């Protein structure tokens, strides 16, 4: 099989993304989680620029720059500030049994590859083989949101899911139109701000960011 050099780099990036998704799924420390998220943004930006270089899609350069600035710098920075202010930097989270979560994640990856197989056969892009990984990282991030009990890791899961979606878009169709991408970037930023405000509200209401307390809000 003869894959061009750029293709090999993209495949490596994809593998790294999948690895990071699993790492995030099993990470207990909130600070490490944010660092992993920043790393994910960095790899995403790198792989997007390689795709832009190899397919001569200039608008992908802008996407890559946007990803780099927003997801590898601004969002992690906001998150860092948040956890410092909330004083939960060193929090260790109790969570669902990690090996079981990993096993479920493996199942999801198999499902995602199975799902992506017919689509990537139709796609004519250089990155088509990575579509399965993109889907898998979306699903893994979702799984992470489900298994976490505190608010900040859930938001990180949400942002990581958006990363996965972005990667899926680049690998299937060389990215979305610029307007859509800008819109999504803005959405993510705004969501981050709103959720940051919510963190403080939740903490003043329940004295903790543990979401189990919100079960009291249920109407009987």
């Amino acid at each position, binding site marked *: 099989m003869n894959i061009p050099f750029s293709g090999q780099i993209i495949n490596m990036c994809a593998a790294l993304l999948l690895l990071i998704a699993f790492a995030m799924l099993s990470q207990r420390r909130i600070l490490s989680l944010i660092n992993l998220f920043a790393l994910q943004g960095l790899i995403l930006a790198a792989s997007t620029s390689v795709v832009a270089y190899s397919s001569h899609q200039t608008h992908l350069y802008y996407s890559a720059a946007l990803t780099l600035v927003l997801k590898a710098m601004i969002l992690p920075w906001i998150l860092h500030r948040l956890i410092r202010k909330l004083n939960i930097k060193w929090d260790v989270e109790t969570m669902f049994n990690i090996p079981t979560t990993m096993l479920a994640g493996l199942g999801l990856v198999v499902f995602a590859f*199975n799902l992506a197989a017919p689509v990537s056969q139709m796609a004519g892009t250089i990155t088509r083989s990575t579509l399965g990984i993109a889907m898998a990282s979306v699903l893994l991030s*979702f799984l992470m949101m489900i298994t*976490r009990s505190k608010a900040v890791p859930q938001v990180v899961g949400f942002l990581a899911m958006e990363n996965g979606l972005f990667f899926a878009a680049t690998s299937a169709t060389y990215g979305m139109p610029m307007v859509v991408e800008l819109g999504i970037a803005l959405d993510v930023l705004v969501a981050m701000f709103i959720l940051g405000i919510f963190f403080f509200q939740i903490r003043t209401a329940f004295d903790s960011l543990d979401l189990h307390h919100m*079960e009291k809000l249920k109407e009987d």
Partner: protein
Amino acid sequence: MFASFGVLPMDVILGVVVFWLVLGMAGLVLQNSRLIARIIFPLGALGSLALAGAALAGLDETSTAILPLGLPDLPFHLRMDALSAFFLLLLGSASIGISVFSAGYFRDMPKASLGPLCLEYHLFLASMALVFLADDAYLFMVAWESMALSSYFLVTTDHDQPEVRRAGFLYLLIAHVGAISILMCFGVMQGGHGDYTFGAMRHAHLTTSWASAVFFLALFGFGAKAGILPLHAWLPEAHPAAPSPVSAMMSGIMLKTAIYGILRITFDLLGMQLWWWGVAALALGLLTALFGVIFAAVQVDMKRLLAYSSIENIGFILTGVGLTIIFHDSHKDALAALALTASLYHALNHAFMKGLLFLGTGSILHATGERHLGKFGGLIRQMPKLALLMLVGALALAGLPPLNGFVSEWLLLQAFLLSPGLPQPYINMLVPIAAAALVLAAALAGYVMVKFYGVIFLGQPRDSSLAKVHDAGLWERAGMLCMVIGCIALGVFPTFVILHLDHVTEMLVHHSLSVSAAKTGWLLLTPIQAERASYGPLVLLLIIAGGGLLIALAVKKLVHGRLRRGPAWDCGFPAQTARMQDTAEGFGQPIRQIFEWYMGVVRQVPTPFDKHPHFHSETHDLLWNIFYAPVKRLNDAIGKQLGKLQHGRIHIYLLYSFLTLLALLAFVR
């Protein structure tokens, strides 16, 4: 009349609709509630008068219009033909009195609730007019729903009381179930062309089974509005809850929009009628009439009593419609025209007599603040003018000549009596039973009216507070007088009314009654042949008036001066009070005894050793348990099961969306 000025009746009617809407808005803006009552409502009555005049002028012509309103590329189609014009006439003429009455009734209401009420009231009138004018399903549904919503807000005027809110919700719920059915009915009728104008529906060709589906969907949908069994449950709740002029309007006019809908769809839009539809409508109508009148006989709340009586009258009208369908399918057009005339006539009559009685209960409620029949008695002394006006309404509703209720019931019975000769032998055998049931209902209606009038106005006051009660105000009496004039005119000049109804029967069943009805001159009403039956109301009126006068003179001459007053025999129990009179419960007792298996009676009888004996008896509607309670239980059970989905744990919610996502992904693969 209007044509000579170059104005079409349709234009006048649209003008009145706009005028009503403007009046409603003005009610919101005006600051003084006395001003709203004294100016806006009488102006609304003038609008009603203009509407009635235009509708009368438009009975013999058909005009159409397209309003560039509504959605883009989907304008409102309007059409006024004889059927629309007749029901517009009903709306206009009956609402004159109601609006005039409202001018007096609402004068003391606080501005905060009168402003919105004024808006809803005129919106209600305008949307009813648009229901009658609509010539496409779109405008029809828009007008129908705004009619339902505005009347819902009118019903819940006193929304601070929980039972009023409950009644309003029940009404809204049943109205919407009905509206869904009507919508489906239109969906079937457009026949897959996607053209929802009535013009296209007239030309759509439906198979027999689809046409039957249309008819029964329409019967269900409009039955929910009319209160046909078993969709009547909202009527006895909503009417007592609403202010009296609103009850009058809903019972007198709004219920007739349902009759209009059934007639429009069955005879105009559907190209065919099948005799067994008629049998179904006939049976349902009879059941409704009997149910309504029997329950009316045992009620102790005066407005509930009238509400059940409305159910009975709707049953009457539906019976006539069913008979029309049977005759029309058997090509007995003269008889079909007779039955249809009777139904339409009864619809018009009922608007006046029930409107009058509901308005009267409003005056009583105003004066006494009481709805329970057990608190009244002897009001004829405190409210003599009201008592006279109400007497006309009660007599008319009891179906006594020479008032209007008699004419339509008599015509309907004539239609029944002339029915032998139908091709279906079984129906031939069943029709006499149906006629007997109808007569039973009519007779019981008389019983109900004796109870209604007797307990309220006759005898001794059962409550000491009744002594200070004042009579109805001038505006209120003026409004009721309009209704009384309607009752008498419709009763005394039936041939003129039938002459105008001809345009409708000509349009729907292609035959008219006046050829035979007025054959012997306008004095005598002869439905088919003079040899078989005829009725001369004016002559009867003169005889009754003359006879009454003679008897009065004779009594004065022969008896007066020889009168001896003594104490009544007191059965050896000397302490008699007014509370020992026959009560509403007592008067209805025989009926309750006879039909006890038919209704749920809960009785609490004291034992002989009770220190404080207390008797209590309540009559429930068994149909509620049969039709509504299971639906409610099912709904509650489903709600409880669905409630289990709600855990309050955000992870579970996320899991729901995750599983949904996975399932959808697996599905699209």
